[in-house]
């Protein structure tokens, strides 16, 4: 009886492991557009994606920090990725979204121009960041190759890092 049980459990374990292996090869990302470029971040780093609403300005911060907003009782900073990437600020449109990202205890909302889609990429289709932007300071995690285009994958922990 116990032997049988063990066998079953072993089998289940094996199955789970193989599932994990398969998952390991695939990275799930969410793509979005800022300016002309398409960027992506790992789907697991996203807490939620919400439509824009009002925020409160905070003094003495760089222009790309728009302020703070209320996310169901939590006060969360709001960062404009256009401004952060050195692009001209644009009026928010119907497609503008706030992506709330989380890394550990750090949470912040990011304003993006529009969402594209959820992307599944094989690990081997992701190359390292170009040499020119290498080093620990870069915000770029890697470059994902798709059939017709490439996508810049961003480091969420870098995005959530205070750099002022």
């Amino acid at each position, binding site marked *: 009886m116990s032997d049988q049980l063990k066998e079953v459990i072993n089998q289940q374990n094996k199955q789970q492991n193989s599932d994990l292996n398969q998952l390991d090869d695939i990275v799930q990302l969410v793509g979005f557009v800022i300016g002309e470029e398409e960027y992506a971040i790992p789907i697991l780093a996203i807490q939620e994606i919400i439509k824009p609403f009002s925020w*409160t300005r*905070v003094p003495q*911060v760089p222009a790309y920090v728009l302020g*703070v907003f209320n996310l169901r*009782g*939590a*006060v969360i*900073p709001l960062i404009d990725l256009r401004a952060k990437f050195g692009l001209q600020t644009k009026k928010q449109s119907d497609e503008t979204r706030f992506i709330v990202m989380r890394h550990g205890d*750090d*949470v912040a909302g990011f304003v993006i121009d529009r969402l594209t889609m959820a992307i599944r990429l094989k690990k081997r289709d992701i190359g390292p960041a170009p040499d020119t932007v290498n080093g620990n300071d870069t915000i770029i995690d890697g470059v994902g190759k798709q059939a017709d285009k490439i996508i810049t994958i961003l480091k969420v922990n870098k995005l959530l890092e205070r750099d002022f």
Partner: protein
Amino acid sequence: MDEFQEILQDFLIESFELVEKLDEDLVELENNPEDLELLNGIFRVAHTVKGASSFLNFDVLTHLTHHMEDVLNKARHGDLLITPDIMDVILESIDLMKALLETIRDTSEDAGIDVAACVVRLDKITGGDGEVQTSAAAEAVTEEVTPQPVVEEAVADDVDYDSMSPDDLEAEIEKLLQERQDEDKAKREAKIAAGEEVLAAPPEPIEDEPAAPKAEPAPAPTPEPASAPVVTTPKKDDPKAAAPVKRAPATVEQTIRVDVKRLDHLMNLIGELVLAKNRLIKINDDVEERYEGEEFLEELNQVVSIVSLVTTDLQIAVMKTRMLPIGKVFNKFPRMIRDLSRELNKKIDLELAGEDTELDKSIVEEIGDPLVHIIRNSCDHGVEIPEVRLAQGKSETGTIGLKAYNEGNQIVIQIDDDGKGLDAGMLKDKSVEKGLITEKEADNMSDKEAFTLIFKPGFSTAAAVTSVSGRGVGMDVVKTNIEKLNGIIDIDSEIGVGTSMKLKIPLTLAIIQALLVGVQEEYYAIPLASVLETVRISKEEIYTVEGRSVMRLREEVLSLVHIGDIFEVERILDANEHAYVVVLGLGTSKLGLIVDTLVGQEEIVIKSLGDYLKGIEGVAGATIRGDGGVTLIVDVVALMSMARDVKSTALSDASATEVSHEKTKASDYTIMIVDDSKTDRTIMRKSLEPLGVTLVEAADGQEALNILKSGDHNFDAMLVDIEMPRMDGCTLATEIKKYNKYKNLPLIAVTSRSGKSDRMRGVESGMIEYITKPYSADYLSSVVQRNVNFKSEFL
């Protein structure tokens, strides 16, 4: 392993609690060396820690506590009189014990601290009259000092159990048995008169012995022969060992230990509830306005007030669970005063009062250091040496009073000394000499202001640097720490009589009363504790002195700063003729903060801005308002220091730079049509379309204002109907004219109301033309052309 961790945690919590009380008891003991109750209590602490630490294999700690126990045991039996010198050694060993416990807390090991020196000194104390123990020790093999064998044995026993039967359960059983035995002893003890002269052996072997055979008969026998000779006496000896146990039931409280995290979580939830309550009240007000006189209103009102009442009660109740008596902080001061007075060769008494006064846990944790600084200062600088005191006709012994009490929503901690007091003149001279203030400032200073000079960074009055204080740091740190808690410090002093310092601290940090103020389109919350008063002033009352704005407030001159200058608020609204000044007070310093509007008083929940935005100067945090928006909380302390560096700007310096857009084609002209009637809008559109201008429509004033504010278009003129829902034309015009940017935007009223008073109202609100319906298309078109300077070549 987890089980071990759990036991370890319990051990640490228990030990720290015991040790905390120990200091106080020991100092007390020095004054009443004969107090058996106290001695028993102290002995019990050493004993408990020893027992538990040996069980957990902390050999160093066991070793130390065992020797302490020996000394205390002797004292307890009357063989030893506690002298200050002996007390020094005991206190030293307790310090070591604390250090060991801290090491254990941090590293789960008790290595790294050398206790040998202290143990030798402890042994010396016991050594002289430790003869009784030799009988027990004789059997042991490898020891040089008499009391030591007992330790090693005791340790060895416990270690044996652990190593030979790693099963925790068995060890636990042993412990439980021992506990039960202690209880039995306590019961027996009640029947037997205390103070008997039979002091055969130290109690450890006896306690170990009965436990040993039951738990683990095989390895234990070694200690048995050692205690065998005294087997006949345990009943007479035990009572003393167990005496403290008698005390225990009396102090048992009806409490449970709760993880602080859970309380914090609860507090957060209450915070959310308070926010929801605020929101509910706001909605209730709105509903009341809209459905005045409806029957269901009363019911709604009742529910809202019950919810609000219960929420407030709940908030207070949860706040109370986080409250700790300030005695927890006060406990360490008797010991400190004792050490200091010995070090400084002064005689100082400490009088504690109000130890039961309760404070929020987070404040209790923060208040300790500032108090230490203040009391050290009082000892060092305040209280004089005995000779001087006698010469001045004071009693030889100085007194420092430390008391806590509630005063309204604040708790006051008062530190009094009967020392030499602060000399205002001397303080001023010193500060001028050190360049902290100018001579002119010094002359204008009241005595009370002079006292606060001791809180200036870099100030130290002691001529000689002592190890106790006088390094020039300390008091300014005190001030910053207290201010961090939203508290204030008040000093009173009289030369030769003494100094009295009052720390006033809010009861809790999480939820506060705040004054909400508005500037331009933003709102800020100012902690009400720092607000002294608010005044309404007109522009003429503001004077400029040396580039700074000031105003006269009764007999004082108050320096002013505009909140907009501090928070870099964009001046988009035109300044009002009147402004409000919020007078902020922190200790003796005052500042007038100019704001545009006062919104009112509200209970707010302080939320942190998080790691990403922490440390922004002038912002203490944020709160969520009833409408769901976020409002920043002003950090009054930081604001006061920021105000010194802010250049003053006049109230009405907003020079709107008119952006002139060159019009190159007819469609560059943009005109907004505001009318609630679709037909009317279409008529206007039809009249203006031939011009080729761009037309934007809005159905009411609110919508028009939103379109205007969004900045999507640069409007050259607006056609506004007067009668509209939500916001009528006149209100719209008034709102628009508040913005500097739209000062010169032509507003043309298009209405069917042609009465004189209507026209007057239109002009008052800022309309420049008044067209009465019905009108001809040409007329409308010509009025618009005239007002936007329409270039004729586009026609």
